[in-house]
Each structure stands twice: as C-alpha cells, then as structure tokens.
C-alpha cells in the first residue's frame, strides 16, 4: 500500500499504529455501517471516506480509539443523509408514487430510519454502534461513556422497541 507521510505519523509513538496501518480497518467498518444505513454503495463510500478523512485530520486525538470513533462519525453522516433523503421522499411523495418504481432496499432503510428516529437518543446510539457498526459492548460503552451493563440494557430495550415499531 502506498504510504503517505504526514506529521502525525512522524511524531507518533512507535507502539501506536499510524493512520496508514489502520486505514483498511477504519474504512471497512465505516463503509459497513454506512451501507447498512444507506443501502447505496456510492453514498456509503463517500461517507466512509469522509469519516476516515475526519479521523486523519485529528489523528492525534482519536488515535487511541480510532475504530469506534470512525464508526460513530460514519453512522452520524449516514443518518444525516437518511434524514435528508426522507425529507426529499416526503417532498416528492406524489411524484414518487406515480413515476418511480418501489425500491425494497430503500423502503427497508427508510423504515429502519423511521424506527430509529422513534427511539430515545441513548438507545438509538447503542443500537447503531452495537449492531449496525458491529462494535463490541466494551467499545460501545467507551464511546458513549457508560458502563457495559448500560450498553446491554440499552441494546436489548432498543432492539425490542425497534421490533415493535417495525411490526406495526
């Protein structure tokens, strides 16, 4: 892989990985959570690269927890795009119903976003990071700033609420 020199890599501690070393892992995780939320490959790649670029721009601060940080940024960017997309769908609802063929993947994402929007903030963050971002309970707890037990509680309650909302 082509190695690009930058300041943080030069001043980084030898024991800590450089950005180039962890970049494949970062962009893979970011892409996964973005694609799960967006369902579009191009948008997911854009979101993943933007999340990695933001991690690079402040690498000295996020080096210790780069992977969950990148997953969180990617999920936030993807949720922002979903929010904008939902607005656009509502705006063009009549046109979409008549002219555009229904897209099951898009319907799934919009339903998922609608269900996530109804969850409390803590449960939504936990579900997104834990299940959509595939982070461990410890990583999720560290990123959110609560205990592992709280992560388990929020995750189970969030999943139950999602199931209930999506079953309607």
């Amino acid at each position, binding site marked *: 892989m*082509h190695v690009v020199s930058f300041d943080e890599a030069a001043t980084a501690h030898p024991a800590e990985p450089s950005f180039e070393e962890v970049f494949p892992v970062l962009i893979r995780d970011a892409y996964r959570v973005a694609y799960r939320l967006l369902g579009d490959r191009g948008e*997911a790649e854009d979101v993943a*690269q933007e999340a990695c670029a933001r991690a690079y721009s402040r690498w000295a601060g996020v080096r210790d927890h780069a992977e969950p940080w990148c997953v969180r940024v990617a999920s936030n960017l993807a949720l922002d795009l979903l929010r904008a997309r939902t607005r656009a769908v509502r705006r063009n609802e009549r046109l979409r119903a008549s002219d555009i063929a229904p897209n099951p993947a898009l319907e799934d994402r919009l339903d*998922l976003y609608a269900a996530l929007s109804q969850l409390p903030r803590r449960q939504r963050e936990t579900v997104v990071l834990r299940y959509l971002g595939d982070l461990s309970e410890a990583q999720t707890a560290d990123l959110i700033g609560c205990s592992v037990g709280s992560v388990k509680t929020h995750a189970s309650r969030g999943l139950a609420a999602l199931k209930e909302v999506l079953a309607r």
Partner: protein
Amino acid sequence: MTFDEPGEDPFGHLDDPTPPMHGAEALTHVVARGHQIRRRRRTAYSASTALIVVVIAGTAIGVARGGGAHNSQTISTLKSGSPSVTASGPSPTRSRSSGSGGLTTTTGPTHHQALSGSPDPTPTCTSVAPTPGGTGAGVTGNAVGRPKTGTSLSPTPTPTPTPTPTATCLTPAPTSTPSTSASPTPTSTPSDLGSDPAP
C-alpha cells in the same frame, strides 16, 4: 426485517454482499481531504482568534477614550481659571454640564451661570488700563458687582495721576503700563504712581 434469531446479527441482511476493496487511491484521497479539513479548521481558529483580539482591543480603546475624555475635561476646567465647583446656599445640587463647567455644585441663581458659562460674580479682572487722569478706574471686562468710583475711558492729560485705578486688581499689575500720552513716567507701576508723583 426480523429479530427472531438472537444469536445472529440482526442487521446482517443489510450488508453489502460484495464490499469494495479500498486501496492506495482511496488512502490518497482520504489524506488529501484530511489536509483540507485541517486547513479549514486552522483558518477558522485563526479567524476567530483574531476576531476576539480585535473585539477586546476595541473595547479597551473605547474604555480608555471614555476615561481620557473625562480626565481632559476636568483638567481644562481647572486650567481655565474659572471655578467650576461653587457651593453656596443651603441645598446644593449636583449637575453634570457638557461644556467647560465640568461637574458643578451650584444653587440658586448661580446655576444658570455655571451651566451657560456666563461670568460669575467673582472678581476677575481681565484687563485694566490705568488711566492717568486719576479720576476713576478704567475698568473693562466683566467685573460685575464691583463698586465703581467712576469710569473714564478717555484719558485726561493731568500730570498727577493717582494710584486709585488699579488698586483692586492684582493679577495684571506688574506688566501694566500707563499710556504714554497720559503719563509722564511710562515705566511707572501703580505702586510707583502712588508713592512718587510725577513732577
């Protein structure tokens, strides 16, 4: 979307079946974008810092100018020689004047004088021309309330001037010289005039 399988990933069906491989090109693009983000952040930080410094400096200059104006006003009032603080009467009232009077404490009839800058009744002799006639004092200016013994604006060529004209005025005394046409001793001072009459 089902959550029936507790052991499996509940959102696994949303995954991309063929995820792309991100190589060196993606890394280059990400690094370039990261540099751009960092540059924008530093620019924004510098601009906000400069703005804060300008605001603080402007505030300090404004405060300094306000205090400097107040001080200069006080000093000019003191230099003018006219008393700006006059306390008389039973109930003094404080008023701030915008002119040369400064902060004055006046009562009654002196209030308007202090505010308008008109001459107060204190004896300020601005210009005194000693008249050699000895018949009166040639008083010009705004000496109000002074008892006048007589005014003589046209000097009379009397050879014996009397020292009465400038006896009440103290400030311009050393430099006042009588007019040459009236006094036979041009360099005589009022005291000289009183003690040594001309021949």
